[in-house]
């Protein structure tokens, strides 16, 4: 059971990561790129949290009833990573709004055309 679950976890992580990255690299729409970027980042959370899970353990909040806890360290790291991620996305969206205002489009290809003209 545990090996299947373990593999499943990593396989899902890898798939999400590749899918997210694919959206970022292949798609031209700037909003969609940002959604892809956040999926790409989110998949990394699983990569960190999964190894920290201990089967039979519980959330790392001390209580007399439990003795086995999952590893708190990755949780801390990922909390930070989530915040950094959303900060990046917010900034990216602000840029998208500005780009839309000054160019009238948010498609990467159109922008490349517009810039090569000037």
């Amino acid at each position, binding site marked *: 059971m545990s090996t299947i679950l373990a593999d499943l976890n990593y396989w899902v992580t890898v798939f999400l990561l590749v899918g997210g990255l694919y959206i970022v690299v292949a798609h031209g729409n700037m909003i969609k790129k940002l959604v892809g970027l956040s999926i790409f980042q989110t998949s990394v959370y699983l990569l960190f949290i999964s190894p920290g899970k201990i089967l039979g353990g519980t959330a790392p*909040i001390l209580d007399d009833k439990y003795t086995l806890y999952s590893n708190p360290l990755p949780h801390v790291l990922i909390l930070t990573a989530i915040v950094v991620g959303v900060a990046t996305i917010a900034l990216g969206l*602000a840029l998208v*709004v500005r780009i839309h*205002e000054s160019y009238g489009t948010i498609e990467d290809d159109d922008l490349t055309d517009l810039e090569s003209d000037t």
Partner: protein
Amino acid sequence: MRDTIILRVVVKLLLPAILIFALYVQFHGDYGPGGGFQAGVAAAAAIILYGMIFGIPAAKQVVPPSVVFVMIPLGVLIYAGTGVAGLLLGDNFLDYSPLGSKPVYGQHLGILIVEFGVLVTVSSTMLAIFYAFGGRADEADAAEEARKDGEGGS
């Protein structure tokens, strides 16, 4: 949407509940899940909800942008200032132990202050971002027709 009475009443009822929840998450963070960041998001969500229903100008009256602009850096200053306090009291930067009579109390107090700094910055940043984007949206709505006429001019 802004004229629906039900929404207005519900929001008015919900608002204090959300704010209390935010405070709970803030100060209970060391016993249960949660902390400054989550509390900040919740508190900001309350104001944002208010702004979405009653309009951004109304929200800006409750929490003026000038206050928000000061709060964002203030949170960082609170956090870093706590660190410097430890430094001035003779220990390393960000060592909270000298803040209390016993190191453990110092640590506990330090965590609370620091989490409060996080709350201040997070909630005000969320609000600032909401004002910025929301303000843009209102502006865009107003300028929609004008822009359609003058397309291609930019």
